[in-house]
């Protein structure tokens, strides 16, 4: 970003000068003169110039931001840039660990609630036998944005400086509902979870097999039995597609066939116990957490590569 100084007194040597360059820092030097640092907007060079204001210069209007000043200070020394990058990496890492922990918790809860539902509904009513074998289709899909831009990476001043140096584009993942979720069968107690979905799109979607990713991410359960891992895959990545298994449509009160067939919970019956619904909510949350983790890992990777380039640049500049 750039600062624009709007000066309403006589234009001194600085005003137009500043417009075509990037103002970084304004400070007072030891003699009490106001000085400023600016960067020439010549993109290949990281050169900083120092100018000064004449004495009766006035600044009626400035757009400051105190932490951007700090960032500008950081921008001055490549070593400090490196430090900043390391701090970002650690931040991303911490976020990643927190999300992974949350995923673990949520998966455990999901399975636990499923067992509780099995307890009250009977073991044979909540098992792999209830799922659709032939025509499963994923309820949620993941859209990959290839250009590495804005969706999740927080654009800050340093990142924009380094964008030119980024050697790879990092694809970002967003979660999309496979079809319009507006008339989905309502499930009570759904916890409002920030999801980037509700987008109807058939074209341009790359369907990932979410089931497999999730079974890799299930961290603790080594003693899974067969039916449980089947259930996991199918709870989370299944929905009933057109009900062509048994002839045609039964209708449930005027809803469209597509919308009614959406909720995979109905595979276990209409009147299911509350724990099963809770379990479904948990697994849905797990899906979006998995996507977040992928995004965080991508972010981490790009930060790490940025760090590497910065380090190379720093060692080069100390050598030369």
């Amino acid at each position, binding site marked *: 970003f750039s600062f624009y100084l709007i000066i309403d007194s006589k234009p001194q040597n600085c005003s137009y000068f500043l417009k075509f360059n990037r103002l970084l820092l304004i400070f007072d030097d030891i003699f009490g003169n106001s000085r400023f640092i600016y960067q020439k907007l010549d993109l290949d060079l990281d050169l900083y110039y120092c100018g000064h204001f004449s004495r009766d210069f006035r600044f009626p209007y400035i757009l400051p931001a105190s932490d951007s000043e700090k960032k500008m200070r950081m921008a001055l020394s490549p070593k400090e840039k490196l430090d900043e990058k390391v701090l970002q990496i650690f931040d991303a890492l911490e976020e990643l660990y927190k999300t992974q922990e949350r995923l673990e918790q949520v998966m455990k809860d999901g399975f636990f609630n499923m067992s*509780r539902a099995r307890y009250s509904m009977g073991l044979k*009513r909540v098992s792999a*036998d209830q799922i659709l074998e032939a025509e499963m289709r994923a309820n949620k899909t993941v859209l990959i944005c290839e250009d590495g831009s804005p969706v999740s990476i927080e654009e800050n001043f340093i990142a924009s400086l380094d964008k030119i140096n980024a050697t790879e584009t990092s694809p970002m993942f967003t979660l999309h509902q496979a079809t319009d979720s507006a008339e989905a069968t309502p499930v*009570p107690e759904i916890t409002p979870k920030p999801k980037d979905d509700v987008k109807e799109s058939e074209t341009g979607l790359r369907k990932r097999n979410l089931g497999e990713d999730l079974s890799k991410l299930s961290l603790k359960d080594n003693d899974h*039995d067969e039916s449980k891992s089947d259930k996991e895959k199918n709870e989370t990545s299944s929905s009933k597609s057109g009900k062509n298994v048994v002839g045609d449509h039964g209708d449930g009160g005027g809803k469209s066939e597509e919308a009614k067939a959406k909720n995979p919970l109905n*595979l276990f019956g209409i009147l299911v116990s509350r724990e099963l619904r809770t379990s479904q909510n948990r697994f849905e949350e797990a899906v979006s957490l998995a996507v977040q983790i992928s995004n965080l890992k991508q972010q981490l990777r790009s930060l790490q590569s940025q760090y590497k380039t910065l380090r190379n640049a720093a060692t080069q500049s100390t050598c030369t």
Partner: protein
Amino acid sequence: MMPEISFNIDHGYLEGLLRGFKSGILKQADYLNLIQCETLDDLKLHLQSTDYGNFLANEPSPLTVSVIDDKLREKLVIEVEHMRNHALEPLSTFLDYVKYSYMIDNVILLITGTLHGRPIHELLPKCHPLGTFDQLAAINLANTSIMLYNAVLVDTPLAPYIKDCISAEDLDEMNVEIIRNTLYKSYLEDFYNFCKKQGGATADVMCEALAFDADRRAFIITINSFGTELSKDDRMKLYPRCGNLYPTGLKMLGECDDYEQVKAVADYYPQYKELFENSGSNPGEKTLEDKFFEHEVKLMKKAFMQQFQFGVFYAYIRLKEQENRNILWIGECVAQRHRAKIDSYIPIF
């Protein structure tokens, strides 16, 4: 007149046998051992010292919870079949009535499985052995409930129960659920009338038990139907009428829209009021279903206090089912290494 005198002629052996079985039901001490298991093999080891013996001995490792379920059920089935084979009237009819509920479960299991595209030969082994009948395998021919009646159920004991819910609509999840509950409702009312006709101590014990079952089903159907597409009229048709809630309670339940209203209905009935009292879904609280199970266990234990009646047979089967649920719950907690609520089982004796 004086049924106590003549009861033992026909049924004394079986009642004696049954009381022997009853003493093999796991005690609290056994459960305390079980909850300390770390793996399912530990569980198997502990079960060997109980009445179950080596029932898991020939199972290949690794053990899974569904295998344990099958074996537990097998033991119960052997006992019940033995009793049924030796039973005379009216005990034989009584035991048949008990088996009808398993038949209903099997029918629904097969219909749902077929609806979802699973081949029939995969589903048949999953049926409950107590509920098999010859025409069961023909279920996959049924696309509508009329066909279900004509092709499959017409010669079975379940035929009179499906009369209330025949329609030409294709079977889908909603219809299957309605069929399940309507079948069960007719069955329950029929069973209730049979027991009432028996009179005496049997009627005493059984009518109380079945009334509780009917009321429990009414409550659970209502609560689980919130947020689904089941209309209130349809819901009213699913409530069994042989309980304490009939007629006013059922009418009030039919109009409920959320949990609080259901609780308000329950407040009119003291025995249900206290079940709803401390239940909830917060951690540390028992859920409503748990409290219902607990109450059932209490009623079933009471059934053993009276002699010379058939209620003990029903009670034994119910208690064994609860024991199976307990063992499977502990097994699942052990298998998932989630020991937080491992003691949510319901101790029986």
